[in-house]
């Protein structure tokens, strides 16, 4: 009887490679939207508990990123945008990434549950599960609606922040924040996929421009933006935010619609879609930052009940 023992090379992965596995740019947006969800919630959040919740949410988002990179290593290597990630580059083995991701996922959810509250922990666990299993393993490779449905995972952090602050009470405001990010995701990613179509086609990912074509994608971007822009104003219309937010939401929403119209009208080149992608990040940041400023100034001057 012969036994073959696979020799495993000692790891060369440094701390930077593991940080890269956690998708720090995505993580920063997750932390920021969760922070806004937490601070606009009624009542006072203890700073230590608030910071603990944010760290758990950040680590949970990092876990989801690492598990996504583990599962998608085979397609990441085929796309220019993702070929430089730690696994395709050979810095981290898929097994290391899977172990790292699962450890962080369990650690972040259990810690959030024990130190902050169980509802927020359950929502964080659901978000990680949804992103990894529903989006990464299932939808991403099977349907052009992948980022539409999968976008729910990215939209949940403000609700987790709200749940961490309130102990899990249901309200319309965090649902509005969820809907804003949910309807923001398709125009944001489809604008990117318009000028990365060949990349996605090579990797066999059925993104909308690959499956339905360029023009259908541009039309869908406009439709979603026309839903998103008014939705962005609703926190003001429903009285959850003041005039500072209302004016800012109208202004940035108007720019988003103008850019979506330019994307729709563009016949050659990708200047408009690149501008749309870049501005969409700024749009979400400005919208949430203004909501935060508006709420904080309202609390400071006594307009909004803290």
């Amino acid at each position, binding site marked *: 009887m012969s036994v073959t023992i696979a020799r495993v090379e000692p790891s*060369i992965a440094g*701390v930077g490679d593991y940080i890269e596995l956690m998708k720090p740019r995505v993580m920063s947006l997750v932390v920021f939207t969760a922070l806004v969800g937490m601070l606009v919630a009624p009542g006072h959040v203890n700073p230590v508990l608030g910071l603990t919740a944010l760290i758990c949410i950040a680590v949970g988002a990092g876990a989801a990123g690492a598990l996504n990179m583990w599962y998608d290593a085979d397609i990441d290597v085929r796309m220019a945008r993702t070929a430089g990630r730690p696994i395709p580059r050979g810095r981290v083995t898929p097994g290391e990434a899977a172990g790292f991701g699962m450890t962080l996922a369990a650690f972040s959810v259990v810690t959030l549950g024990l130190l902050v509250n169980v509802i927020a922990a359950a929502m964080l666990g659901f978000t990680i599960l949804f992103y990894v299993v529903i989006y990464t393993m299932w939808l991403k490779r099977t349907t052009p609606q992948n980022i539409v449905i999968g976008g729910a995972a990215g939209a949940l952090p403000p609700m987790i922040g709200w749940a961490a602050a309130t102990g899990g009470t249901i309200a319309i405001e965090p649902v509005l924040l969820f809907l804003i990010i949910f309807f923001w995701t398709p125009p944001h990613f489809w604008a990117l996929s318009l000028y990365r179509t060949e990349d996605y086609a090579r990797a066999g990912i059925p993104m909308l421009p690959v499956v339905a074509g360029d023009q259908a994608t541009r039309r869908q971007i406009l439709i979603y933006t026309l839903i998103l822009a008014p939705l962005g104003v609703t926190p003001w219309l429903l009285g959850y935010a003041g005039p500072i937010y209302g004016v800012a939401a109208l202004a940035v929403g108007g720019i988003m619609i103008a850019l979506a119209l330019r994307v729709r009208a563009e016949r050659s080149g990708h200047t408009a879609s690149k501008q749309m992608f870049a501005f969409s990040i700024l749009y979400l940041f400005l919208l949430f930052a203004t909501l935060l400023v508006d709420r904080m100034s309202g609390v400071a001057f006594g307009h909004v009940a803290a």
Partner: protein
Amino acid sequence: MDDSTNKPVSGPAPQGIRLTEQQLRARRSRSIAIALALGAFVIIVFLVTIVRLGGNVLTRPM
């Protein structure tokens, strides 16, 4: 299973795994990061315990 399994293995004695300079550096940086993360976790648990117990932290049956 034949008798050969119990015979001593001939050849040079195993040298073990010798890490390269790069592997040693990577392992050291990972170890420091894990230590810092664990230290931060201990501090967080301590602070949350104090926050949760509040003034009661000093009130205990002797």
